[in-house]
C-alpha cells in the first residue's frame, strides 16, 4: 500500500524513531526506591518446571534385575523442563531426566527431549531434535504422565525402558477433515539398541502415525490411531513394526469435576527379520481409569505379551495391575499399585506392590489430551 508522506512527516518520524531508540535502552531499567535497578529481562526467561517421582516397592521375588525399579525406596525419576518461544518462527523445548540406575545406584542426567518446533507454518508443524517418537500413544508420554507407575510391558520389551526416543526430524500435518485427523511422519537417527542401531551408517529409521479423534458427544471422545516403523537393525536386517491404539474418554459436561473414565488399548508388534520364529514380538495392553471423586481414581490394566506366538513353545507373559490414586491437587499425586506378573515359563507368579509420589513445581505445561 502506497502512502503519501509529507516531508515534514518524514522528519517527525525520523525523530520519533531516534527517540524510541534512545529510550529503548533505559526503558528496560526501572529505578526502585532503594536505587537498585530492576530489569524486565527476566520476563523473557523460559518457563521452567520440575517433576519428581519417588517410589517404595516390595515384590515377592525380591529385587529382580529385570524389573524397572528395585525393591525398597528408590528415586524413580526427576525431570527438568524448559520451554519458550525462540522467535516468531520457532518454539524450543528442553526436557532433561535425572534417574538412578537400579543396580549401580549411580545417578544420570540425560536429555530426554530437546527440540525446536515451527509455529509459523499453517497446517503443519515441523520438529527437529531429540524427541519421543510417535509410535502408538503411550510412547509419547513422559514418566510423570504415565497412567500407571510403569509403562506397558510390550513397550519395554520392544524398545527398552527409555521407549523409542531418537534424534530426528518430524512433520505433523493436520488434515482438513471435520474431525481431528493428523498424519505424522518422522525420519529418525535409528539409535535404539533393541530394534535399530544398524552397523551401516547412516542408519535412518522411519516412523509414521495416523491419529483420528472424534467427539461422539459433548462428554465422550473416541481416538483411533495406527502406527508403523521401519529401520535397519544391529543384525544388519530390517526391523519392521506396526501398532494400533483405541481410546474412549468420558467426562460429563455437568458434574465433570467429579466423574470421568478413560479406556485405552494399545497393540504393537515388531519383527527384526532375523529368525522369523524367534524375532516376532507382539503384545497388547488395555487399561481402564475411573475417577470416582474429585481427587480419587481407581484403575486396572491387563497385558499380554506374545501375540502372536512366534513359535508354539515360545514364552508368553501375562500381567494384571490395579491402582488407587489420590491427587490432592493437579500438582501432587500418590498412587498405590499392585501387579501380578506371570510369564508362561515361570513356576510362580510375581506379586508387586508399589507406592509412588509424583509432584511438580513451576510452569507446568498442559498435558496432551
Amino acid at each position, binding site marked *: 500500500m502506497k502512502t503519501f508522506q509529507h516531508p515534514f512527516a518524514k522528519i517527525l518520524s525520523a525523530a520519533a524513531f531516534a527517540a524510541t531508540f534512545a529510550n529503548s535502552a533505559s526503558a528496560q531499567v526501572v529505578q526502585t526506591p532503594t536505587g537498585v535497578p530492576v530489569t524486565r529481562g527476566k520476563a523473557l526467561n523460559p518457563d521452567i518446571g520440575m517433576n519428581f517421582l519417588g517410589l517404595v516397592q516390595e515384590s515377592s521375588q525380591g529385587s529382580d534385575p529385570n524389573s524397572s525399579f528395585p525393591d525398597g525406596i528408590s528415586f524413580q525419576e526427576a525431570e527438568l523442563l524448559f520451554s519458550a518461544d525462540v522467535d516468531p518462527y520457532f518454539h524450543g523445548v528442553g526436557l532433561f531426566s535425572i534417574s538412578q540406575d537400579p543396580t549401580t545406584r549411580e545417578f544420570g542426567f540425560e536429555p530426554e527431549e530437546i527440540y525446536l518446533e515451527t509455529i509459523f507454518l499453517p497446517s503443519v508443524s515441523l520438529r527437529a531434535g531429540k524427541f519421543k517418537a510417535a509410535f502408538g500413544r503411550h510412547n509419547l508420554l513422559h514418566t510423570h504422565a504415565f497412567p500407571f507407575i510403569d509403562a506397558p510391558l510390550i513397550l519395554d520389551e520392544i524398545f527398552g525402558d527409555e521407549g523409542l526416543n531418537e534424534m530426528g526430524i518430524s512433520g505433523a500435518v493436520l488434515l482438513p477433515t471435520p474431525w481431528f485427523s493428523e498424519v505424522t511422519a518422522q*525420519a529418525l537417527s535409528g539409535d535404539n539398541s533393541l530394534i535399530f542401531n544398524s552397523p551401516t551408517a547412516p542408519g535412518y529409521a522411519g516412523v509414521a502415525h495416523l491419529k483420528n479423534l472424534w467427539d461422539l458427544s459433548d462428554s465422550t471422545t473416541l481416538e483411533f490411531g495406527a502406527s508403523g516403523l521401519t529401520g535397519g537393525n544391529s543384525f544388519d536386517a530390517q526391523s519392521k513394526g506396526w501398532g494400533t491404539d483405541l481410546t474412549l474418554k468420558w467426562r460429563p459436561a455437568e458434574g465433570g469435576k467429579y466423574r470421568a473414565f478413560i479406556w485405552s488399548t494399545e497393540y504393537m508388534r515388531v519383527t527384526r527379520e532375523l529368525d522369523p520364529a524367534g524375532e516376532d514380538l507382539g503384545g497388547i495392553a488395555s487399561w481402564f481409569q475411573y475417577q470416582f471423586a474429585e481427587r480419587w481414581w481407581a484403575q486396572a490394566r491387563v497385558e499380554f505379551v506374545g501375540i502372536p506366538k512366534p513359535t508354539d513353545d515360545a514364552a508368553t507373559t501375562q500381567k494384571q495391575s490395579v491402582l488407587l490414586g489420590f491427587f490432592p491437587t493437579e500438582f501432587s499425586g500418590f498412587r498405590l499399585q499392585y501387579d501380578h506378573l506371570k510369564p508362561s515359563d515361570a513356576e510362580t507368579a510375581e506379586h508387586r506392590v508399589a507406592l509412588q509420589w509424583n509432584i511438580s513445581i513451576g510452569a507446568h505445561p498442559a498435558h496432551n489430551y
Partner: protein
Amino acid sequence: MRQFKILGITLLWISAFTITAPAHAKLDVLATTTDLAYIASRVAGDLGSVSSIAKGTQDPHYIEAKPSYMVKASKADLVLAVGLELEIGYLPNILRGARNPKIMPGNPGYLELGPQVNPLEIPRGKVTRAEGDVHPDGNPHFTLDPVRASDAAMLIARRMGELDSENAEQFAENAKTLQAELSEKTKQWQERIRKSGVKNIVSYHKTLTYFFNRFGLQNPAILEPKPGIPPTSGHILEVTRLIRSEKIPLILVENFFDPAVTRKIAQEVPSVRVVVVPVAVGGASEASTLPELYEALVRAVEGGAGR
C-alpha cells in the same frame, strides 16, 4: 530416502490447500468461554460466526485440550481468551496443535481480554501455590461484571475491525448497543440489590468477585479453605460459625461444584439460604445470554429461585 519423499509430497499437498483456500465471508471467531462467545456474537452480529471451547456448565479452570478444539482453532480468524492464567492448562496446546499462525499470541488473530479490563485481586508480594490455585495476575472471572463485559465488547469490536476493516463501523456500533443495554440494566439491578437488603454473601469459590464488586456486595468467606482446595470439615465449621455470628443470609454455589457441602450448612443454620447459580452463559437454561445470567444472579440475591 522414502521417508523424505513422503514428507516432501505431504508438504506439497498441504501447500496446495493453503494457497487455494477461499477467503472467509464471515469472521470465524473461537472464544474460550461462553461469556466471551456471547459478547463476540453480539459484536459480530451477522458478520461473524462464533463458538466457544468451554461449556457454560464446566469449571473453566479445568477444560481439557481436546483435539477437536484444535480443528476449530485451525479455521479461526480470531481467538478470544480471558488470559490471567485461566486457560493456561489447555489453550497453549490447542493453539499449537491448530497450526494456524494467524491466531498465535502476538498476532492480530489472538486477543486476551482480562489484562485489559482492570483486573481485581492482583496479589501483592510473593505468590506461591501454597496459597492454593492463585492467579498471579488477578482474578480472571471479569465477565460477571456488566461494565467490564462492555469494555471487553469495545476491545473485541476494535480488533474485529482491524481484521475486517470493511465492517469496523458496524462492529463498533454493535458494541455500543450492548454497552448501552447493559449500562441501563445495571442501574436497575443495582437498585434491586440495594432493595433486597443483602450485604454479605458466602460463595464456594471466588468466581463472583466482580459481580459482588459491581453491585456493592461483600464476600466475607468462601467454602474452599484455599482456592482450588475442596472444603474441609474444619473450614466448614469456621464458615458456619461466621454465618451465624454475622447473620449472613445467603450462600451462592457455582453450579459446577458439588452442593452437598452447602446442604449440610443449610441444615446447621436454617436461616441461611443456599442457591446454586450458573456463573456462565449456558450454565443453566435461564441463563442463555449474558443479561439473562446477570438477571439470574440478581434474582438469586433477591430471594428468588432457590434450588
